């Protein structure tokens, strides 16, 4: 049985998350991935923003930085640029990363700065009580959308790909093994690596939208997941309301801090 304890600050337990929250599945998958890659706690920095997902950093026995709302990637950029030997992992949510922090998300991906970003996409602002987010599906209710959301949603992974991320994967907490695998691949990949993880918020999203208990939401993730290879042969209509999972992008592009190091060396020689 895997021993999570060495990576945790057990004195900070119990977790702040509600019963049935999917974030704990990601926490455990992250620890397993870190263990498998072999990152050391001293040489790893976990950075988060504000929201339920971002409370993860407090429970992890690493260099941990819980920042302001939406700005985790900016703090992480400072950490990585100033001390490139640190492995940087950013933990954020759909509202944190793509609403208030959307601009930073685009630019961190564009720079292709070497960090792993986990977006916990639960389609809602959970911590503040269930307001709609940029990923709340049209028609679904939030505390600020009592008649259902009338807005279009972000395709987070598509956004990261377009902005220039070198690794993009999408999965759901219904497949914990895959979450672990993609986080591991993301950590191992040089450059900006995103894993978008769909996770359930039974308290603020499921309850309001009559999606059942946590287990029902997990089952729905599993039933609606379509692998990227299968999705390629499906029509847009068939893919509506489906979650396309898999490694969506895996490419090599110049990495920001390495390019800066080259610049330092070239100007120092001249």
């Amino acid at each position, binding site marked *: 049985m895997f021993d999570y304890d060495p990576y945790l*600050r057990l004195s*900070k337990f119990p977790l702040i998350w509600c019963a049935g929250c999917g974030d704990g599945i990601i926490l455990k998958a992250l620890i397993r991935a870190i263990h498998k890659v072999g990152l050391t*706690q*001293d*040489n790893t*920095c976990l*950075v988060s923003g504000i929201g339920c997902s971002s409370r993860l*950093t*407090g429970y992890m*026995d*690493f*260099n*941990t*930085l*819980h*920042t*302001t709302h939406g*700005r985790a*990637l*900016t*703090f*992480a*950029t*400072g*950490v*990585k*640029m*100033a*001390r490139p*030997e*640190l492995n940087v992992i950013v933990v954020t949510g759909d509202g944190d990363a793509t609403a208030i922090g959307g*601009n*930073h998300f*685009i*630019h961190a991906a564009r720079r292709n700065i070497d960090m792993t970003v986990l977006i916990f996409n639960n389609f809602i602002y959970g911590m503040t009580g269930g307001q709609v987010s940029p990923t709340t599906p049209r028609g679904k209710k939030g505390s600020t959308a009592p008649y259902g959301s009338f807005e279009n949603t972000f395709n987070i992974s598509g956004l990261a790909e377009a902005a220039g991320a070198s690794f993009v994967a999408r999965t759901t907490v219904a497949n914990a093994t895959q979450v672990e695998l993609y986080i591991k691949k993301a950590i191992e990949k040089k450059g900006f690596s995103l894993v978008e993880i769909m996770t359930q918020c039974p308290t603020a999203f499921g309850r309001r939208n009559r999606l059942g208990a946590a287990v029902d939401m997990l089952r729905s993730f599993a039933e609606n997941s379509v692998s990227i290879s299968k999705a390629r042969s499906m029509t847009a209509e068939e893919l509506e309301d489906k979650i396309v999972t898999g490694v969506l992008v895996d490419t090599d592009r110049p990495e920001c801090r390495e390019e*800066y190091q080259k*610049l*330092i060396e070239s*100007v*120092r020689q001249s």
Partner: protein
Amino acid sequence: MPRFCDCRYFAQTRDATRKLGVRSGSENQDGTVEMNVDSKTRVITGNEACAEGAVVAGMRFYAGYPITPSSEIAEILSYELPRRGGVFIQMEDEIASMGAIIGASLTGAKSMTATSGPGFSLMQENIGYAAMAEVPCVIVNVMRGGPSTGLPTLPSQGDVMQARWGTHGDHPIIVLAPFSVAETYEMTIRAFNLAEQFRTPVILLLDEIIGHVNEKVRLPEKSAIKIIDRIKPNNSPQDYLPYQHTGSGVPPMANFGEGYRYHVTGLAHDETGFPTNSSEEIEKLLDRLHKKIDRKRDEIVEVETYLMDDARIGIVSYGSSGRSSRSAVRLAREAGIKAGLLRLKTIWPFADKEIKKLGSGIRHWIVPELNLGQIAHEVEWATGSRVPVTKINRVDGNPISPLDIVEIIKRVN
């Protein structure tokens, strides 16, 4: 050159100055005119002095976003920092710039950003984070006219209150305001020293005049400059408390990546750095945050007096308005009026004690500033309204002329 300015950008200004020769024989701060130009004398702007001072102070991380009238600071540092192995990065906005310098500082790099009014507004939330999480950093604001986009190329001193209270909640802050190019250099170094000593953000308020004016300077030798670095923990990582209630109020600071794993948050936290809802812990934290600055207030606050000993009319001013005030005092003295100047080198903490003590013989205060009276109110408070305070204000993008001040001196005399 065996001096610290032995890099190309700064060398260019030195060479240019040499070619300028006697053309740089301008009036010094003390009223004398010095015509000799030797190899150590240069003509540079305040923005240049700021960039050079930062490098000398040990700054090795700069993140910023272009904005007039501060952009030269970024441009110079984009050239200089890579040559020294330091990091320059242009971020996507000022919010990101502020976040990046906090992140970098946590790894041990002395960090800075520079901006002007609109960008300074955007930085406010993260400035509060730096105050709460006690992350040393320097924020330069080359003030321009506001509100809003305002007057990008024209001077103002409209951000002195924003520098004090721009971020939400009660927080301590240190704000410095130089009045010359030479002083910009010294104060930039001091800003880093204070940031490191107190684990706090320090704001350097230039204004467009100070940022862009060309002045002759003789910068001190590096050996004559005192550099302060943050105190690192001397106990084991197991015993390390990142927010310990130490006697000085300033906890030792470990760098990320050096074996001291700890948690940093903008939430109210206890000595371990973790969020707390305990009223007792919250009170202890906020009390310490304020007291670490308050108890050293007398060391932090600096004023400069000019002909104050027998003065009956006192001027309180700062930054570029301090220059006009100095000339006005000299002109008033020539007219036989006992005027003096008390110039604020630190804006915050406020020099109330100094104004009371050094101004005991003053029967009328005059406060010239490029805003509608932000510091004048502080002077009224400091003097307990026992002495009349006359404001001289401009917000039209023009500096206050010495003659404008002389006219008021004569009127109240």
